[in-house]
């Protein structure tokens, strides 16, 4: 058994997590460094510690995770370790014995971060976000749909990327629906970087065992929530041209539900009804829902980027 540090000892990393301060035992290079007051207390702790193999009274048991109420989520992932997330402010990690897991950082900043936001009653979307004409446009879609590559293409045309992989949406109030800036550090696969003409030499890997790299496309974005203007769902088109179609009604609702990050843990944590209600909030705040049909390859994504830049607002 490893010796675990207690309290704040060893929490040498601090990060900005969409406006929150995260103190961590672990290097989490996907996240921007904390740039607020140094003496600000941490909102979220991510610490090394002992984690049980099961929860005391789980009310949802999936193959690799369990939940208890809205406040406890336990991930048991052979080859990586056990991770307990509690009350939206406490992450405890017991890595598997042996060589350091190659994907712990990616798991913490991806699905574990999403669970944390679900517990905090915000809406994490599996999406990149680009600010076009001053308004936040969410780019969502399944894995390999081209979200991050499209964001990189838009960044190359002077649009501002404010989030990659996770977009945190605040739809709790009756005012505007807001997208909270996350990280402008895109995670791109080697083939996408090659097609974009970016050498991978000197880029830091986002995963040790796969050729996924961090690619900074804007430095030091200010923390400023943006009004959410549109949710754009990327889908594959077999042939050119790229097409942007407005979605309404059930199609729009499905587009939103499809892009919720970690939907199964969200349901287990009792978030199904609030997510349903969030759609109504987005619709009444006049957030537009679109499907962007993207032909294969970089040429298709370039067409898609051009469509987004000339699209009508809303």
């Amino acid at each position, binding site marked *: 058994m490893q010796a675990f540090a207690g309290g704040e000892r060893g929490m040498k990393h601090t990060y900005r997590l969409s406006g929150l301060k995260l103190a961590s035992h672990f290097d989490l290079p996907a996240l921007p460094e904390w740039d607020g007051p140094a003496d600000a207390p941490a909102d979220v702790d991510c610490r090394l510690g002992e984690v049980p193999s099961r929860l005391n009274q789980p009310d949802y048991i*999936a*193959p*690799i*995770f369990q939940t208890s109420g809205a406040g406890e989520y336990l*991930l048991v*992932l*052979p*080859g*990586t370790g056990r991770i307990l997330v509690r009350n939206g402010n406490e992450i405890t990690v017991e890595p598997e014995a042996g060589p350091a897991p*190659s*994907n712990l950082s*990616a*798991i913490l900043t*991806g*699905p574990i971060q999403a669970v944390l936001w679900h517990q905090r009653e915000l809406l994490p979307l599996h999406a990149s976000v680009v600010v076009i004409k001053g308004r936040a446009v969410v780019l969502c879609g*399944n*894995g*390999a749909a081209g979200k991050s590559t499209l964001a990189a293409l838009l960044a190359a045309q002077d649009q501002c990327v404010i989030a990659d992989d996770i977009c945190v949406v605040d739809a709790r109030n009756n005012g505007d629906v807001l997208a909270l800036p996350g990280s402008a550090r895109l995670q791109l*696969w*080697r*083939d*996408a970087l*090659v097609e974009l003409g970016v050498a991978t030499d000197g880029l830091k890997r986002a*995963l040790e*065992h*796969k*050729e*996924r790299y961090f690619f900074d496309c804007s430095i030091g974005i200010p923390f400023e929530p943006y009004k959410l203007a549109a949710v754009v769902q990327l889908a*594959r*088109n*077999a*042939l050119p041209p790229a097409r942007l179609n407005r979605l309404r009604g059930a199609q729009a609702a499905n587009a939103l539900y499809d892009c919720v990050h*970690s*939907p*199964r*843990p969200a349901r287990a944590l009792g978030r199904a009804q609030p997510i349903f209600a969030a759609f109504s909030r987005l619709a009444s705040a006049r957030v537009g829902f679109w499907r962007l049909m993207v032909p*294969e*390859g970089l040429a298709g994504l370039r067409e898609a980027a051009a469509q987004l830049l000339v699209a009508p607002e809303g």
Partner: protein
Amino acid sequence: MAGIWWLASYPKSGNTWLRVALASLLSGRPADFNAMPLMSLIATNRAWFDKAIGLESADLTIEQEINLRPRAYEIWSAEAEQPLYCKAHDAYLMTPAGEPLFPTAVTFGAVYIVRDPRAVAVSYANHLAETIDETIVRMDDPARAASAAPGRLSRHQQPRFGAWRDHVESWLSAPFPVHLVRYEDMHRDPHGAFTAVVAFLGLPCDRERITAAVDAASFARLQEQERATGFIEKPRRAAAFFREGTVDGWRRSLLPEQAAHIAAAHGNVMRRCNYDTLLMPLPAERGAA
């Protein structure tokens, strides 16, 4: 609980033909192969895996992914309201954790489509835009998986094929009902071959609907649709997905030594599937490798 019918084959063996025919039968109209809601499920579908497991497979190691795939299939089955039809290009194999990749408890059975490996070699080489010799080596490799491609994220997880002979044998010895259908029989007598598949799956054998479904899946129609709308499953490097669709086209494309190599490597299984290993390429029309 529903369950899963696996529509299994080595690549380029007629799986899409079968799924288009089944989709047309079940929906009662000619299927659009870019939108077949009842037949779009693929065992290596990354998005479906991610939604079932609650993690992003892109973050997992290859071993973690394959060890969790049986759990994903159990969830797909548990949450389905009707039988699932799922395309599979993996061999029927054990995961590194030591359990069947395709769990028996949620499996109704499998339709296994086999095609003469000499024809597969020609078709697959075109599909992968590689030489026939490279494809022959690929089909002979017991550890062969789809290209690992660590530098790109595919919409699919990495299927594990193994050698062609092992692929066929693994499915034919799976511990659940398996209906073997030969590509060549689907070509020669599509109505009869498809009727047998429909009966095996326990679907109504309505003659008119079966005829309409077979017509909807004719190779000429599939080629025509690909020309008109493209096919989302076509690899970027391949000129076309539906290329020739013949039974003995390999005799104009393979060299004698290539045909002999395939027969030597896979002969036992070829004979078991009623392929004549002594049949040779046509000398006069033979093309370059």
